[in-house]
């Protein structure tokens, strides 16, 4: 427990925690407020009607709860992967894992509890980001002149904890992937670089290999929270996705597999330098 709490203390003071969280929340607030401020002005443009509908969808409660959450978990997944890579990589490149091991600490326990502390920080981050995003959404809705009467919709609010929990697991899986890559690379930068490449590589590969990519870590994380069997890719193409329950199961598989690799590698690695 003291090792876990130590991990939380370390992360709570780490600049990477604030930078990652700040970027996520900053972007979120900026986008939501910008959408609110411009929602009505897009109606007269070409494609304006369609964009106006999308903007109103983001700002209209209770549906806005889910839109905001999907937005947080989508962007947050990439940030979580970078964050996980930064934390794991620094343990190797700064030599702090070495110091702990030389004190008789278990390598596997140390790395897994470090990841557990990341998990707690991510959970806190998601909740705070969600609250901030909802407040920003209310402001955006007011700017756009959209009613916020759906804020108290009990059916949606009742389902939020479960969606937040599933989202947390999905983001954890993405963080675990970054954590694993950085552990294997023993480097923050290599871990972050490889993680980002993997993220965009998977997205790009989905154009050509949709039936394979739908089982890949980032795709299953997104699918676990989606409500349909297909999603829209960055180029506007429709990408096949797994049903949410099946995707969630695969999220767990990827998460556990990633942590298993971390444990195995940490246990066997020669700690030098």
């Amino acid at each position, binding site marked *: 427990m003291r090792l876990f709490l130590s991990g939380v203390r370390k992360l709570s003071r780490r600049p990477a925690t604030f930078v990652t969280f700040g970027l996520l929340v900053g972007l979120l607030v900026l986008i939501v407020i910008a959408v609110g401020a411009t929602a009505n002005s897009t109606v007269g443009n070409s494609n304006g009607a369609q964009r106006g509908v999308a903007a109103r969808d983001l700002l209209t409660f209770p549906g806005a709860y889910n839109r905001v959450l999907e937005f947080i978990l989508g962007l947050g997944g990439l940030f979580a992967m970078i964050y996980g890579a930064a934390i794991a990589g620094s343990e190797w490149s700064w030599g702090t894992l070495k110091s702990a091991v*030389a*004190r*008789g600490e278990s390598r596997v326990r140390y790395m897994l509890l470090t990841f557990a502390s990341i998990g707690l920080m991510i959970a806190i981050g998601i909740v705070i980001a969600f609250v901030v995003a909802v407040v920003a959404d209310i402001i955006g809705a007011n700017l756009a002149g959209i009613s916020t009467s759906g804020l108290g919709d009990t059916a949606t609010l009742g389902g939020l904890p479960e969606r937040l929990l599933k989202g947390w697991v999905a983001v954890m899986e993405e963080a675990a992937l970054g954590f694993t890559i950085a552990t294997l690379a023993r480097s923050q930068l290599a871990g972050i670089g490889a993680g980002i490449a993997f993220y965009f590589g998977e997205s790009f590969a989905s154009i050509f290999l949709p039936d394979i990519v739908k089982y890949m870590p980032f795709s299953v994380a997104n699918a676990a929270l989606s409500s349909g069997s297909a999603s829209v890719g960055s180029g506007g193409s429709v990408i096949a996705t797994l049903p949410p329950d099946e995707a969630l199961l695969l999220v767990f598989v990827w998460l556990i597999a990633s942590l298993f690799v971390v444990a195995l590698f940490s246990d066997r690695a020669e700690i030098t330098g």
Partner: protein
Amino acid sequence: MSGTDGLALATRGLRKSYGSRRALDGLDLSVPAGVVYGFLGPNGAGKTTTMRVLTGLVHADGGSVEVLGQPFKRGDRRRLFEVGALVESPTFYPYLSARANLRELAASGAPVSAKRIEELLDLVGLCDRAGDKVQDFSMGMKQRLGIAAALLSDPKLLLLDEPANGLDPAGIVAMRDTLRTLASQGKTVFVSSHLLAEIQVMADVVGIIAAGKLVREGPLKELLSMQGVVKVRVRPNLVDAAIATLAPLAPVERLTETDREEGWLSVHLATDRAEEVNQKLAGDGIYASGLESGTDLEMLFLELTGGQGTSSGEGEFVGLGSPNGGQNGGAPAGKGTAA
């Protein structure tokens, strides 16, 4: 493991290779309890690899290790709860303060009280800077913090890799005093270093390693008594006569002209035979105008390690003066150690 009673640390036939490069080649160390043990060797001789194996950072290919009387195998990590270590450079979270770094390090391994952290910060002279981030620390300050980190669990066995790195002269003296005090309290201090003068004034027992093997081990005084140097100064025109006179006392290879123009000769003899040298010269009518005796760890080190920088991949620093690194004839006899 046989014959390891009374030892704080023992290795037998320790082997470790990195690919085709053999870092440790059957290393046998016997570190008695309650001493400062100086672990010496040229660059690439296997000192750091030994430290890594002893702290469980790398796994040996063969051989055995015994720590504080108990076998230390893969998975016996709790043995390290009684061991403190500073391996290579000290490592910390740069964004945390010195105090926070010690506190977070203390969360791993054996439990440590908050009071102990403050005591150690005081011991290494970092109380005033304890709240500052480590990223703003000088190398010497980091080194001091590293020594504090190694002492966190009040270890019975302390493993220090080049602890004087980056320390200023006052810091080196304080570190040396601290280590001597720890040894006087019954703790064992194992110091890996290439600073021979530092080891000579600090260590009780010395082990010298070359190419992954132990080439000499024993009490420092005993080793140095076999490595005594008597320097004698005669008139320059009598140097050849003096050499002939002293030849019966020492083999020719242990009798060297240090400075013919000044008339200095070095005779490699036990230091208590200085009087005999003087007597012998006087007997032949050669009167010494100067006589010094002392011991030299550097000489012993160069002799045992062949004066080589390395044989295992780190390259060799040849130097500007002589291609043999100043071995034998060129070596400064009694350098800095004249009794």
